[in-house]
């Protein structure tokens, strides 16, 4: 059962990623990326990371991809023009990518002591706490400060996004708001 689910969703994942590369229209690429992220959420579930699976669907497949599709539609992005890039990029880039994959795959296949994943055996502690309980205990005790700093980071990112997206638009309404600050 685990093997079937893994092969199925790994296949979805790879198909979505390859489709992202092959499609020339950005909105199709965005939808393929949603397929990749949702399949990855299922793989996280198979690895016993329930919280991350839910967060993946909500944050990645939900929030981030909504932002992407929103920008694609806002900018009315059409088909991309295919250019093959420079000759040196073709001569050096693609062998380098193949070499990168070969190196990573060799390291993984040579690695000793990698176990097997079995279904239903997640990350729990001895007292029978679930994955979410273990994760939140660490997150809200030992790592409370980084967690709170993350919220400040998100706030700054929101402010920066608003400032960047508003900057330079010539309509008088925006100008009045900026000088009013």
């Amino acid at each position, binding site marked *: 059962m685990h093997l079937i689910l*893994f092969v199925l969703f*790994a296949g979805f994942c790879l198909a979505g*990623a390859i489709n*992202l590369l092959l499609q020339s229209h950005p909105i199709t690429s965005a939808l393929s990326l949603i397929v990749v992220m949702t399949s990855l959420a299922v793989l996280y579930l198979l690895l016993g990371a329930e919280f991350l699976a839910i967060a993946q669907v909500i*944050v990645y497949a939900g929030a981030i991809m909504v932002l*992407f599709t929103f920008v694609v539609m806002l*900018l009315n992005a059409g088909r991309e023009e295919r250019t093959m890039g420079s000759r040196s990029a073709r001569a050096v880039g693609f062998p380098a990518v193949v070499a990168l994959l070969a190196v990573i795959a060799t390291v993984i*296949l040579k690695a000793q002591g990698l176990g097997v994943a079995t279904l239903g055996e997640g990350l729990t502690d001895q007292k029978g706490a679930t994955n979410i309980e273990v994760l939140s205990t660490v997150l809200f005790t030992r790592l409370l400060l980084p967690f709170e700093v993350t919220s400040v980071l998100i706030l700054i990112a929101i402010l920066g996004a608003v400032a960047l997206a508003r900057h330079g638009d010539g309509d008088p309404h925006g100008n009045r708001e900026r000088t009013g600050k």
Partner: protein
Amino acid sequence: MNSIFSQEVPLSWYLLLSAVLFTLGVVGFLIKRNLITVFMSIELMLNGVNLSFVTFAYQWHAVKGQIFVFFVMMVAAAEAAVGLAIIIAVFRARATLAVDRIDLMKL
């Protein structure tokens, strides 16, 4: 029969999948000519790395890996917001999304 309905999947398969996803992200970053799609390829690379973090957290029964993935997701959300705002600003300034035409800093 037993092999198809096996309950066990080697963790190296998960790691290989994450390596392939990362490499596909690199390829997309190199060959795509649309600014938004290039940005999507970066998200694909982040997702590939996240999968290997979760796999290693499973392998070592360590919760730190999953927490790291959680922080990566938060930073990715912030990065997506700022990056897409920059894309909107670039589109306003240059009226194009083709990376070949955004070459002001090119030698």
